[in-house]
């Protein structure tokens, strides 16, 4: 699965494209409705990506094999 960044960027871009198409082109009714539905779904994808996140902080720790491990951080970095 693509990264959140890629999914968000792609969905947002496609959604804006759809709106431009709907507004600009004289599409058939069926096409319009298919695009509208796609647009609604894309908007939902974007909102979910924005809402699910919770500004988590992790600390990267190097393990013995030189790989980075993500550990939950104590929540006092800001203070």
């Amino acid at each position, binding site marked *: 699965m693509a990264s959140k960044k890629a999914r968000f960027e792609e969905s947002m871009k496609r*959604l804006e494209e759809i709106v431009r198409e709907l507004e600009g082109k004289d599409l058939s009714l069926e096409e319009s409705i298919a695009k509208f539905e796609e647009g609604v779904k894309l908007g939902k994808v974007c909102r979910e990506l924005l809402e699910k996140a919770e500004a988590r902080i992790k600390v990267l720790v190097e393990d013995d094999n030189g790989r980075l491990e993500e550990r939950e951080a104590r929540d006092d970095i800001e203070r």
Partner: protein
Amino acid sequence: MPLDDRRHLTVSELNALVSSLVEENFPEVRVLGEVSNLKRHTSGHVYFTLKDAGAQLRAVLFRSDAERAALPLEDGMLVIAEGRVTVYEAYGQYQIVVRSLERAGVGALELAFRLLKERLEKEGLFDSECKKPLPSYPFRIAVVTSPTGAAVRDIVSTLRRRWPPAEILLFPIAVQGGQAAPDIVRALSLLPSVAELDLIILGRGGGSVEDLWAFNEEAVARAIYACPLPVVSAVGHETDFTIADFVADVRAATPTMAAEIAVPRLDDVVLRLDEVERRLVQFAEVGLELRRRRLLELVRSYALGRVRGRLEGAMQAVDYAAEKLRRSIDAVMAAEGNRLNQTVAHLEGFDAAKILSRGYVVCSDARTGGVIRSAGAALEARDVRLAFADGRVSAEVKERFDGK
């Protein structure tokens, strides 16, 4: 003593040769480096290593010179050592025998900075074509800095405030002293292996020129250049420019600004999304309503059964599509609640049959079949037809009674 056929030197001979070559050629050198592995021997001699990011040099300061040296040497100190290069023949190692030392002044550092900057610039490390664009919506951001201090607090709190969707991955490093440059290089070489990382912020708070020095090391510059992920640098204050800043994809004046440059504001993104969705829904309303009205007019204006049948078919298609649309909105946006339900209600309002059932009437000219939109036109037509929800009647317009 059996001798090999080939001519050869003994180790001692070779070392003596090298020694004389070295001592003849480097009777007096001045070298800039960082002091490390400092050891004061009980004899009074001082041994240490001089190093920069890429190399090391053994150094010895004999007692008599050590006593004269006004400088209290410490590990991590940047110095210019003056002396001669000799070879310690017993171990085949060369070293600098330091006669005097001075703390590397701003002048020396500036010179080193300028020379490195010119060299890297010529090599193309600062070229704008090499700069990677920053992602518009980064969701995983690595922050490479000291885990203590103001910089990490500023960066983290700014990221959290502006763009809560992002996950922040802190890579703790030393930002000054001998460990800083290798730490940064290591961080930049390891981070690209972290899954789905979108962006790196590298920085530290303000400090003296010496404090910021790691960010002027060639190895750091090359690590930033080689890093496949976009790097935002933020070293010190507005007025501090380091080599790292020139190589980085974007240079921020301060750590706080680095965070501001790195991420959008959630509010702005939501606003943009709202606006696009509003246009989408508006299309659904206006676009469908327009089609519906056009068809309704056609249905009303043609009396001929065949054509009318086809148009009614089209009308049905619109109704069907609207119904489908309504269902899809319900299905997809059920969780979204109000906003779209209002739209659905709105769309239902455009259903011609429903409009008529609310008591409205469509009035058309009996002769031309055209829809009549004004009292004046109705009076002119005289013979009209009225379409109710359940059927149509003919009527004659008698007079205006609104006095106009």
